[in-house]
């Protein structure tokens, strides 16, 4: 197995984690990872050194953006299991809150935040993945954090009432 292939293999679990948080759906996430891997192997000749991991994040990020675009052209309702009130005050509640908060973000902001917070990429690496200056990455992060805070601050009293 070549170094290129080994580097890809090693990155697969992290790609699944990132895709899972991006799409918030296990099946869609693995489809996205599969497309990413197929694309990466097919365009091996386009990879001229550098960090394989960042390159894979770039492919996945772009594929997800295309996916969201085609979804927005024919709008469908994605179910978030709102009915599951049993866990609303349990330990799972925080997880579901953050999931909803992420769902409300603009794609670019969600991508920037997840790459930094979940995947541990540096600002510079995120800038490369998103193809924007570092300043843009930082303002996307800042806006994402303000939005999530506003959402979570608004949610907490509601949760207390359920208790």
């Amino acid at each position, binding site marked *: *197995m070549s170094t290129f*292939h080994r580097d*890809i*293999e090693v990155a*697969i*679990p*992290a790609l*699944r*984690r990132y895709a*899972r*948080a991006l799409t918030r759906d296990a099946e869609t996430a*693995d489809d996205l*990872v*599969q497309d990413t*891997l*197929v694309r990466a*192997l*097919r365009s091996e000749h386009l990879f001229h050194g550098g960090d394989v991991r960042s390159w894979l994040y770039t492919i996945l990020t772009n594929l997800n953006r295309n996916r969201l675009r085609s979804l927005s052209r024919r709008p469908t309702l994605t179910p978030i299991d709102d009915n599951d009130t049993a866990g609303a005050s349990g330990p799972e509640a*925080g*997880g579901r*809150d*953050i*999931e909803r*908060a*992420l769902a409300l973000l603009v794609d670019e902001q969600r991508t920037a*935040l*997840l790459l*930094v*917070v*979940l995947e541990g990429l*540096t*600002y510079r690496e995120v800038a490369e993945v998103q193809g924007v200056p570092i300043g843009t990455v*930082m303002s996307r*992060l*800042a806006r994402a*954090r303000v939005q*999530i*805070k506003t959402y*979570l601050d608004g949610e907490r009293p509601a949760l207390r009432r359920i208790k």
Partner: protein
Amino acid sequence: MVDYNTPVTDGELHAYVDGELPPDRSEAVEAWLASHPEDAGRVAAWRVQAEAIRARYGATIHGPVPDRLTLSRITRSQHSWGSIAAAAAVVAFVIGGEVAGVIGALIALPVAAAYPAIERIWLRGQLPEETVKEHQQNS
């Protein structure tokens, strides 16, 4: 030397949370947070968000990778698609050749069949009469 005079920016607060702050600024940021409770609250909130995100999705990395996402599986399916495509190209070429042959025959045969008649008509116009007669007797 720690520079306490330069005000801490919003960007620096984010960089502080994300471990991107140059080391010579971290002490100044910490001093700032100690005297600015509102900023300290925001920083704490961002940390809680990050924790929640990691708690929610972090475990995915430990789960078993489904078979369809292993590289050996993906390269294998790519190869089999490649050979299917190659076989399809050969079949298309052969069928294409056959079709071209049949069409060619359909055009060529009537022309060949009509050739003596064409020749007779054409020769009559072009050559002296005796030559034509001689030619027809010979053929």
